[in-house]
């Protein structure tokens, strides 16, 4: 790529598209670019982003601005005693795990895993891992929620 853009020659008409190479186990570059990540993951990433903006704002303001001072087991329990904060915290848990793991997946897909099988394996592994972390997080919060 030239770095001397100021003096570049007048634009030539685009070359006709090259014939697609045969599809083997690896995705063609154009297909990778078109489908990187997938539509549903893209959409869910946006939906969880909105959940996180609202939820994290509530979470951070409640914890650090209107605060409760020194955090402790008991004052976390006071906050989680209200249905409102249970809904906020549990939806934050789910949204943050999806958003974080899908974001990490997008970083991985930018550099590695060009084969369909590898991409699918990564997605399945992350769904299994994410579901386990969500279940663990819910288990950890349960003594407060069920009080």
């Amino acid at each position: 790529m030239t770095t001397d853009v100021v003096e570049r020659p007048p634009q030539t008409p685009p070359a006709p598209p090259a014939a697609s190479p045969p599809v083997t186990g690896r995705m063609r570059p154009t297909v990778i670019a078109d489908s990187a990540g997938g539509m549903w993951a893209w959409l869910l990433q946006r939906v969880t982003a909105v959940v996180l903006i609202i939820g994290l704002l509530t979470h951070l303001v409640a914890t650090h601005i209107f605060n409760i001072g020194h955090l402790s087991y008991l004052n976390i329990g006071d906050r989680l005693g209200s249905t409102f904060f249970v809904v906020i915290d549990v939806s934050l848990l789910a949204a943050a795990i999806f958003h974080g793991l899908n974001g990490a997946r997008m970083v991985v897909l930018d550099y590695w895993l060009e084969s369909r099988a590898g991409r699918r394996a990564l997605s399945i592994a992350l769904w299994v891992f994410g579901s386990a972390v969500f279940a663990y997080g819910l288990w950890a919060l349960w003594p407060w929620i069920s009080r």
Partner: protein
Amino acid sequence: MTPVDAAATNVGAGNWKGLGMWAWLLFRVAGIVLVVYLFAHIGVISTARLGGRSTLNSAFDLFDHPLFVLLDLLLVWAVLFHALNGVRILLMDFGLGIHRHKLVFAACMAVAVISLGFFAFKAFAYIAAHHAGGLGGLI
């Protein structure tokens, strides 16, 4: 060279010259920091169930140290930058402000910096109130 030419030479002249590329890089770095923090956070909170409430309370005692309060502030910056740059990305997805990219970015960053100010004020007030030496406790 006119300002328009100067802006145009950024296109294809090396990705690292554009403001957007730095926004992208910081967005990604903040995202990775946040996903690591998320799992650490779940781990710390779960010690209440794993080791009992005193385990969690002693973790909170540790986090009261001024150094951890400052790290919290850094974390708040990661959240704010990632969230507000994310707002810009959402707006672009809806086709809003596409011709005003840098203005939208500047507006988002203004919101992020002002919000950080609130959290910084709270953090330093907290350190001052709970640690006699203030930040001197760090040294």
